[in-house]
């Protein structure tokens, strides 16, 4: 929108989205050593990657290190991008592997994915009402208490801009499993909210 309220005396916004660059072409240029392309790539993806990693590891300094490792891997491996996935899911996949390596190195216990997948969703029930009633801050707090695998999944689905098939690709699981884990994650979330509501 081009300055719709000029001379109105208001502090306003104008639409100047300039981030719609061709990511695949950008990666090709990065692969050829184009530093400007790398800087643009960093600007386009770093925040989403950082938010996703931070959601999983819950520690800012560690998340920033993982982000840097991820971008280093992009700088070194851009030429290996074959276009079989979106660039966003490719870079998030790299970040996920970097996160996993760091967590392994720290010997942090991560809840087993299989176990989580087997947890049945609650479906509509009393717990769901806790979600209906919850304030945003309560939902955010409850998400922080979820298992890392659940946080990661919710972040990928709702925070990274990836489609469910792309999330399945990043996690290397079938789409159906993504759905069942989503249901389980929400059930866990509503459970936490319900418990907090009862304790208020």
């Amino acid at each position, binding site marked *: *929108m*081009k*300055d*719709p*309220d*000029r*001379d*109105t*005396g*208001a*502090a*306003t*916004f*104008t*639409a*100047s989205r*300039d981030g719609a660059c061709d990511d695949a072409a950008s990666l090709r240029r990065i692969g050829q*050593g184009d*530093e*400007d392309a*790398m*800087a643009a790539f*960093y600007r386009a993806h770093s*925040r989403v*990657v*950082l*938010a996703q990693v*931070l*959601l999983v590891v819950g520690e*800012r300094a560690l998340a*920033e290190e993982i*982000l*840097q490792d991820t*971008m*280093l891997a992009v*700088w*070194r491996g851009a030429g290996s991008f074959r276009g079989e996935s979106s660039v966003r899911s490719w870079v998030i996949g790299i970040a996920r592997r970097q996160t996993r390596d760091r967590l392994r*190195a720290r010997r942090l216990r991560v809840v087993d994915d299989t176990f989580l997948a087997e947890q049945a969703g609650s479906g509509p029930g009393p717990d*769901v009402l806790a*979600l*209906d009633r*919850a304030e*945003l*801050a309560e*939902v*955010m707090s*409850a*998400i*922080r208490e979820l298992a890392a695998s659940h946080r990661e999944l*919710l972040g990928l*689905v*709702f*925070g990274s*801009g990836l*489609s*469910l098939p792309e999330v399945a690709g990043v996690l290397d699981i079938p789409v159906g499993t993504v*759905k069942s884990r*989503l249901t389980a994650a*929400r059930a866990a*979330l509503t459970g936490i909210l319900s418990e907090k509501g009862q304790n208020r």
Partner: protein
Amino acid sequence: MSTGPADTRSPHLDLAELIAEVTGQAVADQARDHLAQCQHCRAEANRWDRVAGGIRGLATAAPQAAPPGRPRPTRPRMLAGHRRARLAASAAAALIATAAAGYAVTAALTRQPPGTALTAVSGCAGFEVATGTLRQVTGSRLVISTASGPVTVTTAASTRVSMAGALRSDITDGAPVIVLGPRSGGTVAAATLTVGRLPGAKGAPKVTPPPGWAAVWGTVADAGRAGFTVVTAGGTRVPVTTSRSTFVVVPGARLGQLQAGVTTAAVGRAGRGRVLSAIGVVQQPAGSQFRVQFHTPVRGCSPGSLADALNAALAGRG
């Protein structure tokens, strides 16, 4: 969802359709029609929207990504071998170089001395910007949590308040609206919306849509979760669809509309005790890439300088 008599699946939207709706991805017309009529599915979509809101809230609260290549004092993996360390250091050096162009300007504009919460507006003596996360609004005061602590912002009737983001709940019947987005078969898919009367605006807005896009303005009718109708001054009705990716701008917002937990910047004259008397308050999600323009005449300060300071502050958070 069910598509025919032989289809024994649930008549309701499946999870993929609900998630697509909540995340603003493409949803089939049939699914969208069903959502408009089905209370069960709307309730489910709202629940997933709450989950998504929590994730977005955490992402908004997440710190700004540090410029790449910042030296880290402890990197055990880089010490695993000389060759590996040299490779990593080489790549890091390249990243430091790439970062310089992209971050130097922002860093220069937003650098703050240790212990201060406000940033001076270049060329405007006495004016400063506070930026951070909105903590609370009480009456005409609001508190912004900045990197170095809370700042109290006082406002007056003349203070301009603007907000932007995925604010579809602000689209209500009767509201004046300007819609910009791609047109298909007479329907406009809203990319950007301006809601509410623009203070002092007269005549038709000056809007130049890109090729293939349309701009329509009028008042909102039949507002729903998936869209609404714009009724133009001439009585023409234009259907508009909205999604999670629709960016809504409210240029004349009320303080009470501001949302806690969202990136907020205020510009004005700084007083004692970390208090700022604001002439403008802006709230938008971090990394929105939408630029603020400031048109209020201010003695001793150009509106452009104020806008630059606000944009730099918001970019610093994004």
